[in-house]
């Protein structure tokens, strides 16, 4: 008899299938009606569970928490409500394991990434998911499954890479940027989104398994997935704290691999000229007292002593000589993710047993690199290494402050900036903070570019300026400066003292991305993020014997 397909099942059926018979209990089920309030105002029909099933139950008799994304609803995309369901459930589980209980979290992933209709709210939710996953990993293995036909992309592709143990089925795909988006951003010569064989040979789970980027490859069958999950929960080893991503611990080796990678014909030449970079300007002004950097590097790292604080500043800047053409304009690419991770782990190691230095992320990142080579080599993993390093550093007590001086976009921002304890931003209307170019949003959501740009009026989370982002609780403090492009000494001094004050606040009261949900500025804009969490906590307590 032919095995039953796992991918054909709904999110709820997938959760039931991995749990011991009769133990499935759903939290915040469809009757709780935690729906997306953002879809109806955009003329879209919501779903009563917002495409996410939270289930508690037993796997091989061990308490487990299953989070299952419904690929059939809005492509499994992560918005405010389903994002808060995942983050909120993981946060409760984290509290429980910290109190000595054992709960095994399993993420059944089937998602294109951030829900474009909810844009920056999805982005914030995913930063909270990353944070909880990495914190949980110290106590229990966090298991990820690429469960369906959509695959797993965007910020959730990074989440997959953050799991302790990742299972993929033969029909699954995993990456950062989906082929359609790469084609839209760069062109069909870079990645032909209609070439299905090419796609699966590049980003299919079998290929990922061959490259060591997923831990176990199984058939698309209910029995195969259920037993793979069961085996991990029964026998899976803990991946202890402080080692970073198990699949990518050796950064030097990863960078070496990238440098040995043969460049094929799929090369789109980008302009060799270096655009004016605020990331570079502010790095030079703040960290080097206006002495310009001379080395041809895209990740700038330098330690400065500001009063009593030793601060490691990190900035990603354009590098016309970068090996990968798609990452020459200051994007977060393969080398940048690994590079940041290396710089952070270096600081973590050298501060062992002493005062933990502060980390300053100077953010001007126009996005992640969209390219064939990037996907083939696993850019999701490179960005995950940076996310992982930031979270590990924060958990160990390094105060992390982000200063947004230019663009802060999507996966690049998740990997460089969003894991900080505090986020400062220049109060400048030319700053852009969003999840995808308007052209790509139009293509993916099948709207006209005009409709997309008008959306910001009715859905503030799709707006692209820094004040809107601050209005979502995404920014702790907006800083006024005279000329953001060429900051004068006074402005630089003011910003420096703001950074030092932020470091001080964080040293006194530790903060994490989750803290932003409770910011006053998020009172109205993120009320569902709060309601969902309250509901999860209430139901969790009621369900605990």
């Amino acid at each position, binding site marked *: 008899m032919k095995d039953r397909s796992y991918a054909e099942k709904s999110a709820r059926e997938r959760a039931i299938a991995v749990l011991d018979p009769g133990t499935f209990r759903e939290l915040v089920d469809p*009757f709780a009606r935690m729906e997306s309030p953002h879809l*109806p105002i955009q*003329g*879209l*029909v*919501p779903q*009563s569970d917002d495409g996410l099933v939270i289930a508690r139950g037993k796997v091989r008799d061990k308490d487990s928490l299953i989070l299952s994304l419904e690929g059939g609803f809005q492509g499994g995309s992560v918005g405010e409500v389903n994002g808060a369901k995942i983050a909120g459930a993981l946060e409760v589980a984290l509290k429980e394991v910290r109190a000595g209980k054992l709960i095994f979290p399993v993420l059944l992933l089937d998602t294109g990434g951030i829900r474009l209709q909810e844009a920056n709210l999805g982005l914030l939710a995913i930063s909270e998911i990353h944070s909880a996953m990495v914190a949980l990993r110290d106590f229990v293995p966090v298991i990820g499954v690429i469960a369906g036909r959509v695959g797993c992309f965007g910020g959730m592709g990074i989440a997959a890479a953050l799991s302790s143990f990742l299972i993929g089925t033969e029909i699954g795909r995993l990456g950062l940027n989906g082929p359609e988006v790469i084609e839209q951003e760069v062109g069909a010569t870079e990645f032909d989104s209609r070439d299905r064989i090419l796609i699966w040979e590049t980003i299919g789970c079998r290929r990922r398994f061959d490259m060591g980027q997923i831990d176990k490859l199984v058939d698309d069958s209910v029995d195969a997935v259920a037993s793979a999950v069961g085996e991990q929960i029964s026998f899976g080893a803990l991946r202890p704290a402080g080692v970073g991503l198990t699949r990518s611990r050796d950064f030097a080796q990863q960078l070496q691999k990238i440098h040995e990678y043969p460049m094929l014909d799929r090369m789109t030449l980008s302009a060799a000229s270096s655009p004016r970079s605020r990331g570079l300007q502010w790095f030079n002004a703040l960290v080097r007292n206006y002495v310009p950097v001379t080395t041809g590097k895209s990740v700038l790292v330098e330690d400065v002593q500001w009063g009593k604080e030793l601060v490691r500043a990190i900035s990603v800047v354009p590098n016309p000589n970068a090996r990968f053409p798609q990452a020459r304009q200051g994007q977060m690419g393969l080398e940048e993710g690994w590079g940041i991770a290396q710089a952070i782990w270096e600081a973590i190691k050298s501060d062992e047993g002493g005062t933990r230095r502060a980390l300053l992320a100077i953010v001007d990142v126009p996005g992640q690199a969209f390219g064939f080579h990037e996907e083939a080599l696993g850019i999701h993993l490179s960005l995950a290494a940076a996310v992982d390093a930031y979270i590990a550093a924060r958990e160990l007590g390094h105060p992390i402050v982000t200063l947004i001086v230019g663009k802060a976009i999507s996966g690049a921002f998740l990997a460089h900036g969003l894991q900080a304890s505090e986020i400062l931003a220049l109060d400048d209307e030319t700053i852009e903070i969003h999840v995808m170019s308007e052209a790509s949003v139009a293509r993916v959501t099948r709207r006209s570019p005009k409709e997309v740009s008008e959306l910001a009026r009715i859905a503030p989370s799709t707006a692209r300026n820094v004040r809107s982002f601050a209005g979502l609780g995404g920014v702790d403090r907006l800083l006024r400066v005279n000329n953001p492009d060429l900051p004068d000494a006074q402005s630089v001094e003011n910003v420096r003292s703001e950074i030092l004050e932020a470091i001080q606040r964080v040293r006194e009261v530790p903060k994490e991305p989750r803290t932003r949900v409770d910011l006053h500025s998020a009172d109205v804009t993120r009320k569902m993020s709060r309601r969902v969490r309250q509901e999860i906590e209430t139901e969790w307590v009621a369900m605990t014997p």
Partner: protein
Amino acid sequence: MEPGSPAGSTVRVRTNVAGFQDQWLSIFRTFFERHDVAAVIEINDGGASPPTVQLRLEQALEESRQ
């Protein structure tokens, strides 16, 4: 679908396909003629056609009786 009150049933349909009001009405007329129940029904059609929804309603009622 949830139990209704003695006062009667309510139905709410959310769809982004316009122009199918008659089909929806006839589906609910048939449903309540066939079954003597009071129910609160909420439908988010998710792109499904009215006949598919009709089938699901029958299944939901069947399940609620088990």
